[in-house]
Structures are given as structure tokens and as C-alpha cells.
């Protein structure tokens, strides 16, 4: 059985999914790729918007999400962040 993902890993996975789609994606694609329930996905998307890692764009066809430079920076530094939080026992 796979190990349960930490919060930081889930955030990384969502941002990577958005980046892989040329930085712009619909919520349904995030849902399929991120292995999350709909409720959890909405919670994380709200959190990522609050942290300014992603931007929501409302179009005629629905919502899309774009990754921001702060989101890119998180992905670039993810390994260091994860290593530090694991070592200091901070992963929730």
C-alpha cells in the first residue's frame, strides 16, 4: 500500500499537475491527476489561492487555474522544504 502523502506532497502534486498543463488547467483535470476527493481538492485549491501559489480565472466555459511565480518557487525549493520539515518532525 502506498504511504499516505503529507500536506506538502499534496501541494507539490497539485502544482506539478498545473505546471505540466503549460501552467493552466481546469479543476476536473486536477481532480483526475491529483488523486484527491472533490472536497479535499477544493480545500487545497482555496489554500493555494490564499498562499498565492495559483490564480483562479473565471471564463465562459468555467474556472481555470494558473500557477504563479510563487507556486513555481515552491516547486523549485520543494525538496529542501520537505527535507527540513521531515528532519524537524513538522510534517502534519
Amino acid at each position: 500500500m502506498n504511504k499516505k502523502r503529507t500536506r506538502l506532497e499534496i501541494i507539490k502534486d497539485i502544482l506539478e499537475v498545473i505546471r505540466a498543463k503549460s501552467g493552466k488547467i481546469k479543476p476536473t483535470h486536477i481532480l483526475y491527476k491529483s488523486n484527491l476527493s472533490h472536497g479535499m481538492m477544493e480545500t487545497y485549491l482555496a489554500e493555494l489561492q490564499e498562499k498565492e501559489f495559483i490564480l483562479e480565472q473565471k471564463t465562459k466555459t468555467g474556472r481555470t487555474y494558473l500557477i504563479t511565480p510563487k507556486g513555481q518557487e515552491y516547486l523549485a525549493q520543494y525538496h529542501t522544504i520537505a527535507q527540513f520539515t521531515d528532519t524537524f518532525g513538522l510534517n502534519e
Partner: protein
Amino acid sequence: MDYEYIIPEWFFTFSIGMELLYALIAFGIAFTAYKLYRVAKERTLKHLSIGFGFISLSYLLWASVNMVMIEQVRAGVQTVCLSCLQNVGRMGIYGHSIFFLLGFSTLAYATFTLNRPSLWYLVAGLSLTAFAASTQKFLTTHIIAAFILTYIIYHYWCCSSTHAQTNRTLLAFTFLFVSNVTFLLSPEFYYAYIIGHFLELGAYALFLSTLLTTQKQ
């Protein structure tokens, strides 16, 4: 009763150097955690940064008080007590204890899964209230710190079963716990002050090696 400990004269300068070293290492951890917090915006990183920041400040104040005392120690005085110190020295002692307790309270809060500032208020508030109400400030500071450390050690012991990387951090906090217990004996036995410092040295050496390991990878 006065806040006091016994320092052998030959160890005095070493102890100041060690306290400054601990302040530097704690500041390094606080700074690194803060830099990562700026990127990840995770509250646990923020609280770890604040906790080690308080601890760094507490060691800086302790070293400052001992520097104020240095002339008296060279004159042969070995016992540090509140009534011997001028107001600046007393403020340094109280400041050291307050920031020491705030630091460990904040580190304990950083390990909580609940994000409730009222919990931090409860832990820090109870610690400082006990300190303020006590007539034996030195003993109370280290008793409270040791108690909080038992919780922190338990948290890291639980973590170490899933994350082997926390073993070094667990050992570091264990050294800190033992050092705080050892300091309880320093009003009576001067070597307890020395042993306590060396145990802290072990703890901060482990913290430093952990910090450098996370930076390398």
C-alpha cells in the same frame, strides 16, 4: 530565594563562548526555517523559526549577564545570585528565562496538529506564570523547560518510527532535556553547570549537523 548557580572560574570564559555558539546555531535554524516559510507559507515553519529565535535570544542574554559578571568572577566570586547583580544584570537573567520558556513553548506548539493560537497562549502563559510566581527562578525555568521537552521528545519519538531523519533531532532534544535536569543541581554542585553546558553542546552540535544536512541535499 535568589536565582543562582555556581560557576568555576576556569570555566567562565568557556561558558560565555558556548552560550554565544548556541545562540548562533539556534539563530541559524530560525533563519533557515524563516526563509523556507517565506516560500512554503507553512505555519509549522513559522513557529519553528520563532521558537528557535526566542531560544537564540535567551542564550545571547545569558552570555551577556555572564559577561557583566566576569569581573566579579575574576575577583574570586563563584556564585551568581540576583542580589549581586545590578538592574541590567537582573533584567538579563529574567529576559533569558522568559525567552527560554517562550522558545520551548513555541517549539512544542509547532508540533501540534491543531492550528489554534489559544493553545500557544495556554502553554506559554502557564510557563511564564509559574516562572513569575516562583521564588526559585533558576530551578523553575529548568523544571518547566525539562517538562516541555518531555512532550517534544515524545513527539519526535513517535515521528522517528515513520521518518528516520528525525532520529538526530530526537537525540538533540534528549540531550537538551538531560542538560536542563543537570542544571537543577548547579546551585549545589559547580560541576553540574559544566556538565549541563557540555550536554547542550552535544545537542546544538546535532542540530547544526542536521541543519547542514538539509542544506546540502
